[in-house]
C-alpha cells in the first residue's frame, strides 16, 4: 500500500489492531501516525529505542541523523546495533532493522553531521516533530533554535549514569530550551555518556518515553509533557514531574521579539565542540 495513502490497508489494520482498539488512538489516530514525518537526531542510546517504538507504531516517515559508526562500546545501550554492525554507520545499521520491522513506512537514514547539515533538512522537510537524542550542548541549542524558527515541537531526552530527564520544548505555548537555559553551561560542567557512563536501561526508559511523547503529539492527545520536566532517578526507580516556567516573552528565540532568526555559531556560544566521540578511557 502507498505510504502516503490516508486509508489503512487491511494488513495495517491487523498490524496495529492492538493500538487501534484503544479509544485514545482508534483509526483516526493511526492515520495521523501514518501521515506524519519526523526527524530523530542521534541513533545512539536514546535514538535506538525511540526510533524502534516509533517505527513499530507506524509513523509514516522517519528520518534519522547520525554521523558516527557503530563501536563495540555502544552495544550495551544502543540496542538496534548488533556485533556484525560494528564499523557501519549507525544510521545504516538502525534503518536496516527498522525496515525489516515495518515495511509499510519510509525510513530515511541521513549519514551526516547533525551539526553542519541539519538546517537544510529541516528547511526542506515539514517535520511534525523532532527528537533530540544527541549528546552535547551545542547541538541541543542548534536543534532548539531550528525547531522554534520552523515551529516544530522538540522532544528532548537525556541520560547519564543512573539518571534521565525528559521534556517537550516549544509545544502548546510551553518554554523552549533557551527559555530555561538562556546561558550555556560552562563547558567543563558538561559530561557525556562516554565520559560519565550510563546504564543501558536508563537510556532505554528515556528513549521509549520520547517515543511515547511523540505518539501523543502526532495523534494530538492531551497530556504531552510540555511545560513540565520528568526527572528520573534509576537508582531509586523514582520519577518526579516538575512544573516549568511558561514561554519567556524575552527569550532570544521564542520570545515576542526574537533576536535569533537563523542558526548562530553554537560551538562558540557553548565554548565546546559538537561531536559525540570521546577518547576511549582505559578502565583496566
Amino acid at each position, binding site marked *: 500500500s502507498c505510504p502516503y495513502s490516508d486509508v489503512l490497508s487491511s494488513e495495517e489494520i491487523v498490524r496495529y489492531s492492538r493500538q487501534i482498539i484503544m479509544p485514545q488512538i482508534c483509526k483516526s489516530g493511526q492515520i495521523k501516525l501514518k501521515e506524519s514525518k519526523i526527524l530523530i537526531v*542521534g541513533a*545512539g*542510546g*536514546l*535514538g535506538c529505542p525511540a526510533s524502534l517504538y516509533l517505527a513499530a507504531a507506524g509513523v509514516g516517515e522517519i528520518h534519522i541523523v547520525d554521523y558516527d559508526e557503530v563501536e563495540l562500546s555502544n552495544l550495551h545501550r544502543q540496542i538496534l546495533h548488533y556485533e556484525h554492525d560494528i564499523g557501519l554507520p549507525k544510521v545504516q545499521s538502525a534503518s536496516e532493522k527498522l525496515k525489516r520491522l515495518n515495511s509499510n513506512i519510509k525510513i530515511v537514514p541521513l549519514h551526516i553531521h547533525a551539526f553542519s547539515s541539519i538546517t537544510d533538512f529541516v528547511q526542506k522537510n515539514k517535520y511534525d516533530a523532532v527528537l*533530540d*537524542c*544527541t*549528546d*552535547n*550542548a551545542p547541538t*541541543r541549542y542548534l536543534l532548539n533554535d531550528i525547531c522554534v524558527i520552523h515551529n516544530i515541537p522538540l522532544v528532548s*531526552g*537525556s*541520560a*547519564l*549514569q543512573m*539518571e*534521565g*530527564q525528559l521534556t517537550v520544548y516549544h509545544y502548546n505555548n510551553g518554554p523552549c530550551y533557551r527559555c*530555561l*537555559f*538562556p*546561558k*550555556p*553551561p*560552562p563547558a567543563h*560542567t*558538561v*559530561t*557525556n*555518556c562516554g565520559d*560519565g557512563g*550510563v546504564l543501558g536501561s536508563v*537510556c532505554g526508559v528515556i528513549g521509549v518515553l520520547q517515543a511515547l511523547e511523540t505518539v501523543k503529539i502526532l495523534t494530538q492527545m492531551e497530556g504531552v509533557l510540555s511545560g513540565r*520536566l520528568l*526527572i528520573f*532517578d534509576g537508582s531509586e526507580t523514582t520519577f*518526579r*514531574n*516538575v*512544573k*516549568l*516556567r511558561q514561554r*519567556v516573552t524575552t527569550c532570544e528565540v521564542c520570545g515576542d521579539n526574537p533576536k535569533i532568526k537563523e542558526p548562530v555559531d553554537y560551538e562558540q556560544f557553548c565554548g565546546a565542540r559538537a561531536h559525540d566521540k570521546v577518547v576511549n578511557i582505559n578502565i583496566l
Partner: protein
Amino acid sequence: MHITVEFGGGAELLFDNKKSHDVTLPEKDKEWIIKDLLIWIKDNLLKERPELFLQDESVRPGILVLINDADWELMDTVNYVIQENDRILFISTLHGG
C-alpha cells in the same frame, strides 16, 4: 526552620555525593530567601569547587532550581521567601544520550 535541600543530575557530586539533606536553618532577624540559602549552602554544605555551583550570586547556568517541584522562575527566583518544610531541588541538566 526545617527544609529539605536536594541535589541531582550530577550536582550532588559537589555535596559528598549526597542527594538529600535535612537542613535546619538558624533563626535570623529577617526572613530567609533563596539568596541567603545559596550563601548558607556555600558555607555549610558545599564540599568543593564553588564555581561549579554558584556564579554571580545565583546558581551557575545549567542548574535548574525547583521549589516544591515548581521552577523557581514561577516563585520570584532568588527572592522567594522560604517556608517551613520546603523542598528545594538543585538539578544539573543532563546532556548525554
